């Protein structure tokens, strides 16, 4: 019993600490989780961690939360998952509660306002950088369908303000349709090339 309790405590402390000190979301927290749970604690194998990461990244929702659920469940079952979820969401929850109280009071402060204005330009640049990288990869593949899908999705979101849910569903259907077409073709051609 004592051993179980200490497992839960370590799970909570580890995920809380990781979540509190990683800025930048899923892509940063996953490698740190690997370091903690694979290299330090030896609770799971490296290969398994990679598989869990793949599931976390291809599932909907925040990658950090997904990874925490998988890890917690793997180590200590459902209770473990609940503990790691709590450990992961508490730090941002507490931080943002405090900030939102201050935000109302300080938004009109001239210094805060000037710094925020400067930071907005930085955030716009960070997003633009991500778009250039990701968009470049899509175009580099020289796949006309992808480029058309990209253009349509952009107009639908930016110009017509369509509910994003429908655009994602449509994109997912396109992907599924292509998968089954490819499967059909490879069956006809007698094997996958």
């Amino acid at each position, binding site marked *: 019993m004592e051993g179980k309790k200490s497992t839960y405590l370590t799970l909570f402390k580890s995920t809380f600490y990781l979540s*509190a000190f990683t*800025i930048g979301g*899923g*892509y940063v927290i996953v490698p740190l989780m690997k370091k903690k749970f694979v290299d330090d604690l030896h609770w799971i194998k490296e290969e398994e961690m990679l598989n*869990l990461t*793949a*599931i976390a990244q*291809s*599932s*909907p*929702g*925040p*990658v*950090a*939360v*997904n990874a925490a*659920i998988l890890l917690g469940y793997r180590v200590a079952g459902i209770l473990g*998952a609940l503990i790691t*979820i709590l450990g992961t*969401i508490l730090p941002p*929850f507490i*931080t*943002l*509660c405090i900030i*939102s109280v201050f*935000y109302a009071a300080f938004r009109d402060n001239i*210094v805060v*306002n*000037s*710094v*925020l*204005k*400067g*930071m*907005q*330009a*930085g*955030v*716009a*640049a*960070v*997003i*633009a*950088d991500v*778009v250039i990288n*990701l*968009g470049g990869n*899509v175009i580099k593949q020289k796949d006309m369908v992808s480029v058309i899908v*990209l253009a349509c*999705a*952009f107009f639908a*979101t*930016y110009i017509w*303000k369509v509910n994003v*849910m429908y655009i994602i569903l449509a994109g*997912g259907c396109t*992907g*599924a349709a292509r*998968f089954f077409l*490819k499967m059909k073709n490879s069956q006809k051609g007698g094997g996958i090339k």
Partner: protein
Amino acid sequence: MILLKLFLSFFQIGLFSIGGGMAAIPLIQNQVVDLNHWLSLAEFTDLITIAEMTPGPIAINSATFVGIRIAGIFGAVVSTLGCILPSCIIVSILAWIYFKFKDLKVLQTILAGLRPVIVAMIASAGLSIFIVAIWGEGGFSTNPKTLNFISLLLFFSAIFVLRKWKTNPIFVILGSGIIGGVINLLA
């Protein structure tokens, strides 16, 4: 009623943001600014700026921030729960399928099909944020008076630094905040 609305909105954000971080931004904007008018575009831009600077997933940060402003601490709790509930359900199912069949090929192909859509959505949200950062809440205009030259200069310098040296985004955002803040205060 407002609690239910918050819950459902963030449930949708949790359900449809695939690929983490940036991919959640357009969904949050869609729900919080366009559909429910809980935040103005400028407040939303502030929120993303804050979320980028604080620990934790952007979606959780946004859920807490919007929830507490609209309906107090209960609003924050309800929004955050709504945001993570789809993960809890879907990740459990996927993990079960994975451990049983060890094959995620269909899922991976569908995800590959989604990639251009997600890029387009991030681009769209990025353009909204760019316009607020450069022209302010009034939006794009050809009148040069509304254009903020300091922000435009900061934007291009930040892009240059990011692409040339692959600097950590946190430092780029902090740096442009400090430099922009000082110039704005002096001007």
